[in-house]
């Protein structure tokens, strides 16, 4: 009888181990595999150039971008963001007071995991938390003022390498894993995942657009998109991707949007901030 029990336990343990191994969260191993995939698939693209999205994939598009960048379409947003950053709240404090180094040159540290709330804090969430903590109205997550503030913060951080940290906290690891799951999960009536375009098809066209690689994809945000005729935040980019595959977008600041940005930005660690960007 004892022998049978031991055999049964051995079978259960033996079959359970591979499952546990599959579900283990290992951001460092994911990072290595992710980096290897893109650098081997696009050996001619310099590593730091991946942050330029479709321009790293298409020479013709790159020429147009260089021409456009002579008069950057995001410049107005940067100026507006700078003004907003310095403008005192009703209580006399400013946005700058909420951030390390007065908010200058810190974009590369976001998103970050907040041990107190147990949540991922993106730059956009941090801006709104700052406003609310000071008795001000939060900004719309999609565009306008939020895009302006984050454009200014990105501009002051250009060239600084992403430095996203995933602490050894089960909540942080869960958030990272959820972000990874969101990225690879197919959704919408068209049954696309983020990876369908940005892992399986970077450099290929979808209608007239050249698809950007997932590696470094958050570095240029926020962006001026000609298709939008204006600026858009990371939230807007995610919401727009959802709609394009006929999935109903989530609300700005949703936990899953925070987590997927956390995952993608961690994958971009070491790559330079290039935002605010301009895209077709």
């Amino acid at each position, binding site marked *: 009888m004892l022998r049978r029990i031991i055999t049964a336990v051995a079978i259960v343990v033996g079959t359970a181990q591979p499952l546990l191994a*599959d579900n283990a969260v290992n951001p460092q191993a994911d990072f290595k595999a992710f980096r290897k995939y893109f650098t081997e698939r696009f050996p001619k693209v310099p590593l730091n150039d991946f942050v330029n999205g479709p321009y790293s994939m298409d020479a013709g598009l790159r020429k147009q971008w260089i021409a456009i960048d002579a008069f950057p379409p995001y410049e107005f947003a940067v100026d507006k963001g700078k003004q907003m950053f310095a403008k005192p709240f009703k209580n006399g404090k400013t946005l700058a007071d909420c951030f390390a180094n007065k908010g200058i040159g810190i974009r590369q540290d976001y998103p970050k995991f907040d041990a107190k709330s147990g949540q991922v804090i993106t730059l956009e969430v941090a801006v709104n938390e700052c406003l609310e903590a000071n008795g001000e109205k939060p900004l719309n997550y999609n565009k306008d003022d939020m895009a302006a503030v984050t454009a200014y913060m990105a501009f002051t951080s250009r060239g600084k390498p992403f430095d996203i940290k995933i602490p050894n906290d089960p909540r942080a690891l869960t958030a990272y894993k959820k972000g990874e799951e969101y990225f690879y999960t197919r959704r919408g*009536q068209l049954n696309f995942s983020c990876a369908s375009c940005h892992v399986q098809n970077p450099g290929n066209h979808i209608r007239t657009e050249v698809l950007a690689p997932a590696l470094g994809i958050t570095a240029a945000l926020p962006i001026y998109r000609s298709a939008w005729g204006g600026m858009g935040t990371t939230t807007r980019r995610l919401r727009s991707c959802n709609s394009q595959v006929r999935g109903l977008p989530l609300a700005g600041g949703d936990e899953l949007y925070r987590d997927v940005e956390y995952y993608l930005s961690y994958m971009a660690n070491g790559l330079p901030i290039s935002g605010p960007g301009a895209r077709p």
Partner: protein
Amino acid sequence: MRNRHLILIAVALSVIAFAGVAFAASADDFKVALAKAEAADKQAYAFKNQWTTTEDDLKKAKAAAAAGKFDDAVKLAQQAEALANASIVQAKEQEKLWTEAVIR
């Protein structure tokens, strides 16, 4: 004999008369169809996986009902329910399938 013929003709005429007529949907039929569609959509919401097409059909169904076009309203609500159910199936399948796409 004559009566038998008359009965047969009457039956044949009624079959012909009703063959081309579908029974019109009522406000109650719409209420039932809408409740089913909204229940499925609520489940899709719980998965954070609603489709825009489901929402569009729900809106159109309500608009058709408001205009008194209950046939159209029921059809649209049923279509919304089918789409919501498909999005639920997708979400459930993807709970396991997403790992197969991960770069390793």
